[in-house]
């Protein structure tokens, strides 16, 4: 049971972290790009 929980926790952490960081970068770049216009 512990391996099942750890496996899904790791997957959520990796995929969720990646999405979170990507959306943060996207927001930052969109602010930069709109400031240049």
């Amino acid at each position, binding site marked *: *049971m512990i*391996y*099942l929980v*750890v*496996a*899904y926790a*790791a*997957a959520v952490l*990796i*995929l969720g972290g*990646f*999405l979170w960081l*990507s*959306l943060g*970068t*996207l927001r930052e*770049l*969109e602010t*930069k*790009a709109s400031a*240049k216009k």
Partner: protein
Amino acid sequence: MTRYTRLTAAAVLLMLVAGGLIFLYAPEDYLQKEPQRIFYLHVSTAIAAFACFAVVMVAGAIYLRTESARADRIARAATLVGVVLTSVTLVMGMLYAKPIWGTFWLWDARLTSTLVLWIIYMGYLLLRRLGEPGRQTARFAAVVGIFGFVDVPIVYFSVTWWRGHHPGPVIVSNALPPEMLFTFLVTMVCTLFLAGVMVAIRYRIETLADAVEEGADPVAQLVATQREPEPAR
């Protein structure tokens, strides 16, 4: 709420539906018990990673032929997402192996070829990161992306060509009961959608990063980095 935030919310919602099926609907495996539930996302992320690497190969070929900046950006975006998905496959696979085989890792053909796949595309990312930005690096990376895909069929057929510890293809051999097959198919569709959303977000990031870089005036940047000259006495 932007289009990308809405897409992300939809992908997260779909993954929650898949999670519900995995933990509440799919029956427990008679032999492997609870750890078998790792299988659904472990295999789905592997398939989604293969799809990303197929996109890298096609985009790389288009780039070599047309030098389209859009194709290059798609390749960059899909490589990063493919590497993240392969990382999930490897981590989940190791945590699946421990209760079943008694060890996290074996130098089995499937495991080794998947690790090689991860290393190849990490090499692609390193090349993009460390190489001089421009045509030469993009062309070289496109070649790596195309030849790197050769490892994908090796990963897929490794369980047939070299009989090791990793189980053979259970989906195509119709070895799953209907409830498990349904759960797997839903998880796979949801994971593919998530991968598509991730690639779309990364593509937008690459586009904006290129625009910000191109928009930067090199002379103004040089002036800004230089020290103010001392006033003449």
